[in-house]
């Protein structure tokens, strides 16, 4: 028997690319105009669908954000994944916060990490993980975390010697300086 999400997809009538199909696993890619319709019909017709995750892949070379909604059916534990591409500039994505309360938090984090707008999400401008962040949103591919780390926190201390005993003796100073073992002690 055909599984519920697959029936929705075959009934829907719009263009759908199947990414991966497995036992209890169905991943499709649609155009961004059809995302809401597809997810809502999955929610209504499959009954007990829950939103597990909203994820973003920054495909900077194509200048798009790929958004992915992962739904799980609590009745048979099958996974239904919907992906769609959004332009990277002034990215604005519909919110699902009024259907699943968890979506509010997922979207709030994506706003902080990627700078994606979710119009209608009441809490998207609250700080979530970062506090007073002024740079580019950190999960974007064009944000260089190593450069930022060196600029802000300073370069890390590196080992000057490859011999650990010398290194420890130098860094700990007079404190508990380990006495190097003599060859006859070994």
């Amino acid at each position, binding site marked *: 028997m055909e599984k519920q999400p697959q029936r929705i997809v075959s009934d829907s009538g719009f263009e759908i690319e199947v990414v991966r199909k497995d036992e209890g696993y169905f991943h499709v890619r649609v155009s961004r105009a059809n995302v809401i319709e597809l997810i809502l019909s999955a929610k209504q017709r499959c009954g007990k669908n829950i939103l597990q995750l909203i994820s973003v892949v920054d495909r900077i070379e194509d200048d798009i954000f790929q958004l992915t909604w992962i739904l799980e059916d609590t009745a048979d534990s099958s996974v239904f994944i919907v992906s769609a591409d959004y332009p990277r500039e002034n990215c604005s994505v519909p919110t699902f916060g009024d259907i699943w309360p968890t979506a509010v938090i997922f979207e709030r984090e994506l706003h902080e990490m990627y700078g994606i707008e979710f119009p209608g999400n009441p809490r998207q401008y609250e700080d979530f*993980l970062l*506090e007073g962040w002024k740079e580019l949103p950190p999960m974007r591919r064009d944000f260089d*975390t190593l450069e930022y780390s060196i600029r802000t*926190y300073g370069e890390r201390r590196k080992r000057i010697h490859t011999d650990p005993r010398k290194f420890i003796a130098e860094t700990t100073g007079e404190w508990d300086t380990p006495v190097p073992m003599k060859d006859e002690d070994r």
Partner: protein
Amino acid sequence: MYCNKLPEIPDDRKKIWEKVDNMARANSLWVTAFGTGCGAIELRPLHTSRFDMERFGIAMRPTPRQADVLIISGYLAVKTLKRVIRVYEQIQDPKYIIALGSCTMNGGMYYDSYNTLNILDRYIPVDVYVNGCMPRPEAIIDGFSLLMKKIKEGKAEGWKNYIENLEYYRENQKKVISNWDLPDYNW
């Protein structure tokens, strides 16, 4: 709300008493219950019956007001650093800091992370580093015994160092904490 006056470093008049005090201080190190990082998971076996750190006079205390030691258990995110400064400044003098893990020394495996500090002793004075990721309970006990030794010899002076060089520390702290709203010194 706060007392903005800087704490005073006790004068050297009581030098002999200082030694006696240090003997007492070293044998009752009370630790603030603040698990700042993943190293906190190894503090639980340490203060329960398996490793039992109370036999060394080390006990967990719920508030900084009752404690002498702050354990920075691993990497420190910027958001936590702000809380750590508050907690540290609220601890009564003398106070000591033990830093666990490689990530407090030089960033460890998070050297390129945008949200963790690389070198902890630029921001708060660290008395003892315990290396490892994560340090075993035995290693932490060893760190405590090193701290005791330092205190008895009068060399664990991070808290004096902090007050004397407060400007240096404040400058570094303000450099990473972008929304600085702490008072000059919050008691």
